[in-house]
Every structure is written in C-alpha cells, then in structure tokens.
C-alpha cells in the first residue's frame, strides 16, 4: 500500500466517521412529549388499528413502543416511577399482572371496568382484558381422529400420550398450570407437569410447535387458538393439515386468555390514558382490534370476522382475574424440573 493510498484512506475514514457521528448526534432529540406513550406487546397491526381509530376519534396522538410483552414488563419494572410509558398493552394478562403486584399500575375508571364482565379484568381494577382467546389443542388431522382426542387436559400427563404431543412453556402455559391448580389442586398439577416433562416434547415457541403439528412431526400440541388462525391466514385454511380442539364440559384445560391493558401510576397524562382505556372497550375500539386478529371481543354483541366458533361453546372454569401473574406456576414448574 503506498503512502498516498494510506493518506487517502485515513482522510476518507476520518470524514466518514465524522459524518456518521454528526448524523448520530443529530438524532439524539427525543420524541415529542405530547400525547400518550404506549408500550405495546400485542400484535402490532392490531394495536396500530386501535390507535388509528382512537386518534381519529379524540385527536390525541399515541406513540407506540413495540416488543415482546414480558420484555416490556421487565423494562417497565426497571424503569419504575420514571417510566416514560403512560399505558401498557400486553399480549397476555400475566405480564401486566406482574406490574400490578409491583404496585406500578393506576386505578382504572369504574365506568370503564363496568363495560365488560368482571372475570376479564383485574380484581383490584388495575387492568382490563381487551380481547379473548381460547387455550386449545392443535392436532394433525391425518394423525389423530377427532373421536380419539383426549377428553381432558389431565390425560396429557399420562403414559397413554407418550411421544404424541408438544408443549411450550410460555404464552398461556402458566395460566394452564394455574387453572389445574385451582380445579385439581397443587399435587395434581405437579404430577401433571412431571408427566408433561416425561411424555411430551418441549418446544421453544408456540408458532414452532403448531408448525410441527401442521408438518406432521408431532400429533398434538397445547396452544392458543390464534396461532392456528394466523397460519390459516398465511396458507389458506383449506390447505391446512391441522385443526383446533377444545375439551368437552368445564375441563381445567379450557381457558380464556385475555390480552390486557393498564395505565401506569406514574403517567403524567392520566386523563388521556383513561380515555384510551375506555375507547378500547368501546364498540369502535373493539371492532378495530377484532378486524385484524383472530381473537374474540370482550364486549358483548360483536362478532369476529374470522369465523371463530361461538365463545359460548366452551366453558372455562377459571378466569383471567383468578390467574394473576401466575407466579405460583413458577414454583411448581421448578419442582417438576421443567425450568
């Protein structure tokens, strides 16, 4: 390399470095403080539709931060009282319930809470359910006949289903464990978890597990209903090898999961935040959400455009309000050696 080349490279490098740094520093300015800040863990398209409808109706701007719900909950827990967030919209209720237990959530207007059944919101009125899904079994139609499907969630902890099912220790799994604890007791839940570990296959994600069922790698998986619907949307429902199943009667395996939202106690814009929460449960808010994801509305009298079976077909003995942050499930899973 000649000297000239080196000098050229040096000058080039230094000016590139300078330019990039200036560009970086120029971006240092923070987003405008006006309006609401929403930490969003729910499907982005769903929340975007909701926010657009809200802004159109009220003129209030909403800035979204998107990530996985548990990561956002961990982030808010670290931020504490200085959190820039006014609102948190979680894909599941336990992450937001964990913030409730840390005392970081504010009270929601009683008028808003009254709009939906009490079982879909926090007992102390700090978060509301925004949409409902059902906990289901995804099964491969070529591998299991509908008549041979297990009659209870408890069957999955037995040798009879050895090697036939997959499970995922996230998104709805903790609620599953808590439901069994409520109905069958702690010992039964522990035995069930041990059976799961012995006879089932653990997957690192619900999407991967339901794809495995679809591809015939495993016959069944414990899952939530919307994973199947998003696959149906991508591939076309008529092309799928897999289908959904709920247990008959009020089995402990039938659960309603809710996506849930709440306001942070530290919010400096509480009036607007309350309006947002009320809007979520209004007809316009609910319609915006159910148009973009295969979930049930929490508000009575609306129907999902995704052709979901009526929610009344399923009986769930334990409600999201009973689950809390599902932290007790943690101890049981540890005892069973699952985590």
């Amino acid at each position: 390399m000649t000297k000239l080349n080196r000098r050229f490279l040096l000058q080039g490098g230094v000016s590139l470095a300078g330019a990039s740094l200036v560009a970086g520093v120029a971006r240092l300015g923070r987003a405008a403080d006006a309006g609401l800040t929403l930490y969003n863990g729910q499907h982005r398209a769903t929340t975007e539709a909701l926010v657009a409808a809200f802004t159109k109706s009220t003129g209030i701007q909403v800035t979204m931060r998107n990530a996985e719900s548990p990561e956002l909950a961990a982030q808010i827990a670290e931020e504490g009282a200085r959190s820039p967030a006014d609102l948190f919209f979680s894909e599941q209720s336990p992450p937001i319930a964990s913030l409730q237990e840390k005392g970081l959530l504010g009270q929601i207007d009683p008028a808003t809470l009254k709009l939906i059944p009490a079982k879909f919101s926090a007992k102390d009125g700090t978060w509301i359910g925004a949409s409902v899904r059902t906990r289901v079994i995804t099964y491969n139609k070529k591998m299991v006949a509908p008549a041979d499907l297990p009659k209870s969630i408890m069957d999955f902890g037995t040798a009879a289903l050895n090697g036939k099912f997959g499970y995922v220790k996230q998104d709805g799994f903790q609620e599953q464990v808590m439901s069994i604890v409520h109905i069958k007791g702690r010992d039964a839940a522990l035995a069930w978890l041990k059976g799961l570990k012995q006879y089932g296959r653990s997957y690192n994600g619900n999407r991967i597990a339901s794809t495995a069922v679809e591809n015939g790698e495993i016959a069944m998986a414990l899952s939530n209903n919307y994973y199947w619907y998003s696959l149906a949307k991508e591939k076309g429902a008529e092309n799928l090898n897999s289908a959904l199943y709920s247990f008959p009667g009020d089995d402990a395996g039938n659960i309603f999961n809710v996506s849930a939202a709440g306001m942070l106690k530290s919010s400096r814009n509480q009036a607007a935040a309350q309006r947002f929460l009320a809007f979520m449960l209004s007809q316009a808010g609910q319609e915006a959400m159910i148009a973009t994801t295969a979930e049930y509305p929490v508000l009575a009298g609306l129907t999902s455009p995704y052709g979901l079976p009526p929610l009344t077909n399923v009986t769930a003995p334990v409600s999201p309000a009973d689950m809390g942050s599902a932290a007790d499930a943690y101890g049981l899973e540890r005892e069973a050696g699952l985590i």
Partner: protein
Amino acid sequence: MTRGPQALPPSWLVMASLIPFVLVALPIGYVIVQGWQAGVGGILQNLIRPYTLNLLLNTLTIAVSVTVLAGLIAIAAAWGTERCDLPGRRWWRLAVALPLAIPAYVSSFAWSSLGPWFQEIQGAILILTFYSVPLVYLPVVAALRSLDPNFEDVARSLGHGRWRTFRRVVLPQIAPALGGSALLVAAHMLAEFGALSFLRVETFTTAIFDQYTAEFNNQAAALLSGVLMLICLPVAFAEARMRTRRRVARIGRGSARALVPIALGPLMPLAILGFVLLTILSFGVPIVTLGFWVWQGHSAGQGIERVLPALATTLGYALPGAVLTTIAAVPLVIATTHFRGRFAMLCDRLPYIVHGLPGIVVALAAVATAIGFLPAVYQTSGLVLLVYLVLFLPLAQSSVRASAELVPRELSDVARSLGKTPFQAFVLTILPNLLPGIGAALALTALQLMRELTATLLLAPAGVVTLATEFWNYTSDRAYGAAAPFAATLVLVSGIPVYVFTMRTLRLNDVR
C-alpha cells in the same frame, strides 16, 4: 517486536481505554447486583439443580462442538483455496464467506422447517457450525497468506512430510488467528438466542429468556447470566493466552516467492464436491427458503412500503454504531498489544465476557443505568449506540488487533524523538498502519449491528423501525411472506460489509 511490560502507556491511551472499560463494566455490575439480591441461599437453591446442570451440558456441548467443527471445516476450506490447485479459487473464497450475510435466525428457521431431526441438539450444532465457518475461515486465510513459505521449505528439506510440516510449521503460525476467531465463535455461541428459538434445545440463554417471559423474574435471570459470565471467563482469557504464546518472528516480510499450489490430482472431484456442498448447506438452503416464503405466503407484499425507510434507519444506526465501536476498540487494542499490563489486559478481556451475555440482559442494564443516573439520555439514539458498543466491541477488537500486531511500537518512538506528542505520534505513525484492520472492524460490526434486535426494540426512540424489527414483527405474526422482503433486503445489504470484510481480511497480511 514488543518490549517488556515495564513500558507505561501514554496518558491519553489510558483515558481512552477507560471509557469503553466503564461502559462494559456496567452490565457486569448489573448482573452482580441483581443476582446478589436473590441472597446466598437463593443463589444455591436456584443454581444447584438437575435443570441447571442440563442447561450447562447443552450450552457447553453446542459451544464446543460448533467451535471445533467450524474450525476444522474452516482450516480445510482455507487450505483448499490458498494452497491447492483448485479451479476458481477466487470465487470459492467469496462463496465460503458469503453465508456471513445471512442472520443465524434466518438460516435456523430454514433448517428447522426441514424436520424434527434438525430441531434437536445435533441440528443446532449443524446450523450454527455452517453459520460460523466464515468467521473462522477469513482470519485463517489471511494468516495463511501472510506466512513465509521459506519456513515450510526448510521443514521439507529437513525431511518432514507434508502433514508433519503442516502440524509443526504451519499450524503454530496460524494458531493465533485460528484460536482468536474460534474463541470469538465460542463466546458468540454462548449468547446465541435467535437461532435456538426455532429449535427444541434449551441453553442458558433460552432459559434466561424463559425467566423473563414466563416468570418476570429478573433476579433468577441475573443468576443464570452470572453463570454464563463465568463460562465466558476462561474463553476470554484463553484467547489472550493463545496470542501471547506466539513466538514466531521474522524481520521484514521476507522474500516471498510465489507459492506453487499443491496438485490435488485424483482428490480434485472430492474437493470440488466439498466446496459445492458447503455452499449449498450454508448459503443455498436459507436463500431458497426465503424465496419460498415470498412465493407461498398470502401476506406477501404487506408492508412493502416500509422496506426502504427501514433500510435507511437500519443504516442510520448501524453505521454510526460501527464507527463508535471501532473508535472505542483502537485504544483498547493498542494498550494491550503495545503495552502489556494487568489492567490493560482486564480492559481488553472484559468485552469478551459481556459478549457472551444475551442482549436482553445488557439492554436491561442500560435501562437501569440510564433511568437511575442519566434520565435525559434514556430512549435516545445516543444510548442505543452506546449499547451497541458494549455488545459488539470484541468483534472490532479482534479485527483491529490483527493489524496492530504487525505494527512495531518503535515506529511511534521515532515520531516522539522528532518532537511530536504521544497522541500526534500515534496518529502519524501507528494509525495509518491500522487502517486495514479498522476497515475490517467497521465492516464486521456494521454487519452485526444491522441485525441487532433486542436493544433496538427496548431502547431506540419510540417508532423507530429497522429491517430486523420489521422482520421480527411479521414473523411473530407468522406473516412469513411479508417478512421475507425485509430479510432479503437485510441479506442483500449485508453483502456489502461481507464483501468489504472479506477483501480487507484477505489483503491484510497479503505478501503477494
């Protein structure tokens, strides 16, 4: 080349090394404080269980197997393209380096969809090995090209066979490049999460994510992170030992003659088959899968208008991030290669330990620090760039070091004797000689920063959208058709730094 440890580094160098040192120490402090809150009883209860043992076993199996396999394949490939009469060597070199452009989570998704076998630990090892080969291959090629063939001639003339010559003469000379890059791969494997999230293998990193996702248990997560840091410790220091043990010296570049390539003869078809297979497995399979998504997915075309803005933002973060990271790496590298000492050594090693931590841990440490001490910078682009620096410093260090080791410190003494200040002397004499390494460092860090997800999601100003965040957004909704263009753009744009990095690394030690 270098003097004993008695020489003291100039004060500007000490100050400049302290900044990255403090930044990198923050996540370590965070892990210790959080983990300590679990109490000694809690620590033992949490850690000494069959479950943790199983994680340890999986984590180590993956890290060791991937490192060893990638090392072997890389040496064989490097030997093939540099020393044998393989036709089209120029192209094979690029072909072996090309998979660098594909993020691990993309190739993992491709492979895992082929069947359950690939989702188990053997699949994880296979996927990550093919992903890691270029990271070892390029430094080894660069080292091979810088060798003085006279050493080998001497060995052969003393009656050593080809294999013995390789083992006793070539291998010791390429050992620093091989060891350095292999251990970087090992540290990287300890922190790998994206690729494993598609598989059924549990490691410390997936367990740390489980702690956050299932239990909201920051303390238990910190404990597991602490164990991960302990595993990284020997890795980080072994890499340094590997380099300081080097005792190959020569004056000048020698009168390198043109090497006569070894005739492969009847082995030729086998060698070509090997290279074709390597290219198909590491590059072909993921690329075909990407194409398949676009063709098959109903969501294809959604969000397509966001591709260009996302690309602009991706570059807007990755380029300044790469520049900042490289600038921080230079003093660290100079402090250790030209002035050894315990503190310099520690400054130099710490980033490797943090490199083995999952992004979520480093990001949460940044949240806690910024909220606690500097709320004004919280969720600004500046903070994101600093976290990038913490996450990817070792990549820049290893590239810069390759250049720094070739520069005698005495060069700056000459400038000093002519009345220049230590800093001027550095800029005039050492820095110009570091440029090839700096170029490689910029390319490699820019490449990794373009894929960064966790820190960008949690810390960037709200509403910031990059190619990686869009890809995540659509795949988490299973809209693979919509996700594919973002992944494809990422791969295409990554091609540029990959090309630059490949060319820089190849030319770095070129004697021809």
